[in-house]
């Protein structure tokens, strides 16, 4: 099927999402559900998104000297939970762990 959605509308849809996500948390198994459960207690990192391009925007953040076992990341807007993404992270010794989230809006 031919995509008929103009890029500026993809960008608008993408930015609607990214404007509502400004923080990342780490969650232990079984993950955050729809309310942000099983938060690891590790300080949430602030997120800054790139400008949407062709409906795609990215953000990266690094958890420094991270130790432990986590099953999901959580995405937040302030204190409001927005979404969890499965993302297994397992470190027995300290590691700097950089997590990149890519968001894409479009038509298929």
């Amino acid at each position, binding site marked *: 099927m031919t995509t008929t959605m103009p890029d500026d509308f993809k960008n608008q849809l993408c930015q609607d999402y990214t404007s509502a996500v400004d923080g990342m948390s780490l969650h232990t198994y079984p993950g955050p559900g729809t309310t942000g459960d099983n938060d690891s207690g590790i300080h949430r990192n602030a997120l800054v998104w790139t400008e949407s391009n062709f409906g795609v925007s990215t953000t990266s953040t690094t958890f420094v000297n991270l130790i432990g076992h986590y099953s999901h990341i959580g995405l937040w807007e302030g204190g409001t939970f927005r979404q969890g*993404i499965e993302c297994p992270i397992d470190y027995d010794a300290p590691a*700097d762990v950089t997590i990149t989230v890519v968001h894409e809006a479009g038509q298929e």
Partner: protein
Amino acid sequence: MRAVAPRPLTTPHGKSALTKIFQRSTATVRAHIFDSFTTLDNFVVLANYLNSLDTTGGQLGGYGAVRHKDQCATDNYRVKAVVGSAANGKTRLVTCASPGFDRFYALEIENSANDQFHIVKGTGLSWSTSAGIFGVAIGLINLLLGFFSSFVLLIPWISQPQAVLSGDVVEIWWDEPNSTIRVYRNGGQVTSLPVDREEIPHGDGYRYFGVMQGITYLSPGVKFTSIEAYDIAPADSHVDAPYVARVVTTIKVGNRAAVQVHPIARVIAGASVTVHSTGTALPGALPLRLG
């Protein structure tokens, strides 16, 4: 008057297309693992001949093999170490390893009258770790007594004259996109070796790294003061919905087109892509070949 049976209900059907509007989020992980050999707490000791391994002076010495407890997040990672003292002998910097080091690639640093960098492979080992050459009870002595010959393919596959000095940074990288082992001294590539992508296992569980120290008995070899491993590309995505990798393009003025690759897309050299431009410089679709 007669009754007329109602018309049967039928599913409406037409020619309209079903369109899907999607929003997708993906998360990828990169790790940077570092250890300065103040202790061996962050390592699993696989062999320790006569309990000789030590971290005296902040460098790994003795005769044995250690691997870090953790792995990188991707297959495409580099392992780097800093040289402390550099006595005669051989030391291996290991990457792409199985938990027991029965499969691996390594940079072997030979410090001798003929200083060399060797790339070696551990590809033909068939014994288990517990009963094998790297079992702690048996340890490196088997290796030192010549059982190394049992390593079917544990021979230098390529060698290059190269000396090292204290403070040098040495590095090994299985360049995953090109399936080539590359070794470096102070950031400059010393030699490389293309390898069959399938000759040793890769993926989660086969991304361990570490050191085989003092390979030649009574010749301690190069000692490292630190080791680190770091992913150089995002891991495979963990996706909240099926994801289709794509290439994002940015068209510059004139006849030059810059291709900005999506962060999780894989680019294969020589692959063809079509750039769809909405700009005025290169309107329409433009086929490109990636170098």
